[in-house]
């Protein structure tokens, strides 16, 4: 049994109409429920300890709307050894939401050399690993950069975190 051309055209028209409506409905359902900001808002506070003084204290790096693969937010601090002898110092991360750690890449640079570059997740795991040694009373400047790696993709969108970085004597 074969359809007449007229019926075939009618059926094709009906199917096309239904497809069009289904497409519109599906598109309507896909409209985002809320607006999103550009990227990750990150704040890295550097706080002194008894052994290692920090100047200036407080928010060393503030990045607003950091996009994956985009430019880094930067800051600088000066560390002072306050103990009675030479001191190997190690960065230690606290606070923030550990779930966001992998979305934030940190770079520590001193005396023109990068002493750490990696995710906050790695920095948190590496707590206790020395990045520099300060003589008694010695001071050293560190440049800090915070960026969102391109691998973060959309995961960094509309996220915000505040982390604290301290420098402690390495064991």
């Amino acid at each position, binding site marked *: 049994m074969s359809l007449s051309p007229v019926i075939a*055209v009618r059926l*094709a028209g009906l199917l096309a*109409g239904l497809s069009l409506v*289904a497409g519109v409905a599906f598109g309507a359902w896909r409209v985002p429920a809320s607006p999103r900001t550009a990227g990750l808002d990150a704040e890295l506070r550097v706080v002194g300890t008894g052994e290692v*003084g*920090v100047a200036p204290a407080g928010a060393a790096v503030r990045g607003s709307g950091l996009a994956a693969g985009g430019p880094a937010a930067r800051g600088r601090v000066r560390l*002072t050894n306050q*103990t009675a002898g030479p001191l190997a110092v190690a960065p230690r991360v*606290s606070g923030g939401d550990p779930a966001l750690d992998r979305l934030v890449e940190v770079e520590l640079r001193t005396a023109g050399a990068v002493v750490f570059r990696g995710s906050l997740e790695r920095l948190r795991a590496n707590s206790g690993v020395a990045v520099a040694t300060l003589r008694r009373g010695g001071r050293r400047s560190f440049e800090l950069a915070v960026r969102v790696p391109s691998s973060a993709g959309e995961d960094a969108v509309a996220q915000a975190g505040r982390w*604290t970085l301290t420098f402690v004597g390495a064991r």
Partner: protein
Amino acid sequence: MPRTRTKSLLRSLLAIGAAGALAGFGTFSAFSSSTENPGNKIEAGTVVLSDNDSGSALYSVTGAKAGDTVDRCITVAYSGDLAADVKLYLPDAVGPLAQYVDMTVTAGTDASPSFGDCTGFVADGAAVYTGTLNGFRTAHSSWANGLAYNPGGDTKWDGGDAVTFRVQLTLQNDNNAQGKVTGDHRLMWEARNQ
């Protein structure tokens, strides 16, 4: 024949329009309302207190004579993110020499602290304790009776606060002190969030 085709085409378009209208009406006509409470999470705060001793004693004196004095400074820093109280106390029992050791504790600041060295120390008012080492132990032996001090007259310690404590000890000129010892004892600073 062309007329019939035109009719068929028009009927088809009518069917498409009718189906679209019905489906569209079904899709968009429902009343709806929703509300949400987003971004829920809990992050625990931190209480972190440290000093600059690197594990060394603030004073360790042997063969002390009457009138001998030690004058040493230690910097205590708070890096937690919860507001906290900090108290100083002496948790360990002290030996019979402690009653012959005069003790003064003064709080202040030091722009360039170095453990033990009081060169840059600037007192923040009068001494917070004056008496004997034994008296300090009696009065301040735990958190409950610890000697509270807040930086710069504040009511709490915040992250980044640091206080240098100057500890001065003098052996009294008393013959009864001969041969006695204080024993090892710790000076304890403890922070607790408010």
